[in-house]
């Protein structure tokens, strides 16, 4: 009997995984047919990750072009990209960054890692997980095509706008489906003994994140259907093409934008004790902090904020902007406590983890600053600063996760020196990309709109932000180079556990391993010693 079919609350405390390498699924065929028909969670996850990185390049490239335009803010709407395409470029940059990169790469990593972390050999609903990926690939490609035919928000082609709305709805459904598979895996496929209090932090963070994503994306799906019907019948009751972005805006502003960074905490929480060479301290605090952060990042209640601009000044909105800092600080405290009690080795995954946590903290701090009414930062470039900080943290954590879980994602290790350089360049790039926007927001630079009244220093700040964007792209190039170098090498045998990990994804066979704490492999090693 497959271990994954055992009830989590069964009396036995011993993990007994399915020894078959395919986890009970039919052995896959090779080639294109094997790829198209695969139900293996690792293969599906790799497809998610690879495709999302391609969309990152699309989003990043457009972001760089927008950044170059902004160096001369007084001609922002008239040069280069042109007045007509500026709104579409801004929209594609955001849509691709969030719905085609950030969420998909996290779902991909979750699809690869989460089943193994909970001791399962497969993901729940593997066919649905595969269908989710293919729907994402097709829908995401059509989203990009819809912009190319002058569609998308602000587009001039009505059919292109209709196509955008329909294809984005398809992507949203795909993301929901992928999320449901991951959440169900954590809740139902855990090995005996692994209570929710003992679930690895990444799996826990994916559970709470996917829960928030499913309900938030459900709302977004409803809105997209409404807009599609409205635009398809050319009624525009809910706004013309230029207003579509306003209906989507809540997904990339606080608090909802934080929801795309919940798994960052899980990644940090899993990496720190391994590289701190100690047990995770204050584990319950970390679990609670991730849960609280997720709850506070639920932002569907702000989806009508563009109809009620005063919402951003209301007590609940302001309180939520500040409250999100509390679980982050509690989590950071637990991480520092873990590192303090161990003997840290500064390998690349730890560098990525610390960088990601710092950027998330900076994003939350910027968000708290943004909701302070006297600063008048809502609607300024401070908005993009928060988004860039948070999505930057997500990108750093995602790249770090690929480095950390390379035996699952890549099968070959990445160059450690190049990885450290990537982490540092990425950190510097995100800081330089995001920090100047807060300052220029204080200098009244509006977010992505006509701007003629330029104050001193804004052009320089925009130049610094542009340089930060280029550094992020450079880091992506370094990462791709590292991947290419790694893939060119022969596989180095069975490197199952290169880091001496603490959780179940680092064993091929969990038979006989008792799960009585969040670190079952550490328990086993200490028991053997």
């Amino acid at each position, binding site marked *: *009997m*497959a271990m*994954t*079919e*055992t*009830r989590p609350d069964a009396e036995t405390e011993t993990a007994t995984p399915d020894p078959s390498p395919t986890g009970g699924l039919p052995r896959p065929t090779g080639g294109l047919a094997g790829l198209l028909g695969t139900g293996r969670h690792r293969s599906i996850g790799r497809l998610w990750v690879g495709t999302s990185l391609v969309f990152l390049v699309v989003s990043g490239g457009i972001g760089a072009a927008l950044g170059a335009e902004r160096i001369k803010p007084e001609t922002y709407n008239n040069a280069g990209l042109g007045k007509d395409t500026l709104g579409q470029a801004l929209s594609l940059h955001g849509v691709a960054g969030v719905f085609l990169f950030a969420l998909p790469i996290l779902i991909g990593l979750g699809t690869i890692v989460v089943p193994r972390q909970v001791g399962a050999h497969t993901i*729940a*609903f593997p066919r*649905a997980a595969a269908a989710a990926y293919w729907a994402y690939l097709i829908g995401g490609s059509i989203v990009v095509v819809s912009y190319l035919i002058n569609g998308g928000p602000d587009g001039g082609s009505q059919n292109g706008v209709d196509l955008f709305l329909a294809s984005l709805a398809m992507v949203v459904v795909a993301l*929901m489906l992928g*999320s*449901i*598979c991951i*959440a*169900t895996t954590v*809740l*139902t*496929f855990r090995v005996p003994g692994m209570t929710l209090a003992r679930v690895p932090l990444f799996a826990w963070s994916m559970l709470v994140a*996917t*829960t928030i994503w*499913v*309900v*938030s*994306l*459900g*709302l977004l*799906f*409803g*809105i997209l*259907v*409404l807009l599609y*019907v*409205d635009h398809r*019948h050319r*009624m525009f*009751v*809910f706004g013309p093409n230029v207003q579509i972005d306003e209906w989507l805006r809540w997904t990339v502003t606080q608090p909802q934008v934080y929801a795309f960074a919940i798994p960052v905490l899980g990644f940090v929480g899993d990496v720190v004790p391994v590289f701190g060479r100690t047990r995770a301290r204050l584990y319950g605090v970390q679990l609670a902090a991730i849960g609280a952060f997720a709850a506070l990042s639920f932002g*569907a209640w702000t*989806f*009508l904020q563009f*109809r009620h601009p005063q919402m951003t000044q209301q007590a609940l909105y302001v309180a939520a902007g500040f409250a999100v800092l509390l679980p982050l600080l509690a989590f950071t405290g637990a991480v520092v406590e873990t590192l303090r009690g161990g003997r840290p080795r500064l390998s690349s995954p730890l560098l990525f983890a610390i960088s990601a946590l710092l950027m998330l903290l900076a994003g939350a701090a910027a968000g708290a600053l943004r909701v302070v009414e006297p600063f008048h930062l809502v609607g300024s470039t401070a908005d993009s600063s928060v988004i860039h900080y948070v999505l930057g943290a997500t990108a750093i954590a995602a790249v770090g996760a690929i480095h950390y879980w390379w035996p699952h994602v890549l099968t070959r290790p990445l160059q450690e020196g190049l990885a450290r350089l990537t982490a540092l360049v990425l950190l510097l790039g995100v800081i330089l990309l995001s920090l100047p926007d807060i300052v220029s927001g204080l200098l009244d630079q509006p977010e992505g709109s006509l701007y003629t009244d330029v104050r001193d220093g804004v052009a320089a700040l925009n130049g610094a932000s542009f340089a930060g964007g280029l550094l992020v792209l450079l880091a992506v190039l370094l990462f791709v180079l590292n991947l290419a170098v790694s893939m060119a090498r022969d596989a180095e045998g069975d490197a199952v556990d290169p880091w001496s990990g603490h959780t179940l994804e680092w064993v091929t066979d969990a038979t006989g391993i008792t799960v009585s704490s969040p670190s079952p492999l550490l328990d086993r090693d200490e028991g053997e010693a």
Partner: protein
Amino acid sequence: MAVALASDAIGAPPPAPPARPRALLVGTTFACAGFAMAFAGLLGLYAELRASVVRDGGTWIPEEVEIDLTPFNVALAGLIISIVILHWALYAVGNDDRPRAYLALGLTALLGASYINSIAFSYTQMGFTVNDPTGVGILVYVITGMHLAMAGAGVIFIALMAFRTLGGQYSARDREGIVAALIYWYVTVAVYAVIWFTIFVTK
């Protein structure tokens, strides 16, 4: 010739319960949460727009639109009865009473289909159009249309579970699929109850 010993029959422990990871149940619950949020958002928008139109002294439901409550009341009653019948199906499967289980599952699917038919027929009677500048027509069609799609998916879900029961997958030892269908159907009916009150009763 084999000799059956008394201990073989009396002393043997009962068979182990089947492995039930309850994945379908949990996955269905998550999907229902997503659906519920979609309707919550749209109904919230409906209430918000209606309130703003009424506040400005306008008319929300166009005068040429006539909403006769009778078919919607009957549809709601039918859906509530279908829940009771689905519970009967669950009970029957729990008792391995297959004929009644098939009957109950079939009746539930039939009531679901009749609901779809009644709402589709009401579309031809109400007089709502999408060419309404207040957006009420678009909202009504989107909300009720999405619910029709949800109910249609529910009917397919129930039919699928009925076929699985027919194939022996669900029995007294494992009713997970039927329970999952029941949860889905509960949410479908609950959403319709909110639609019924928000759109058709309070207008």
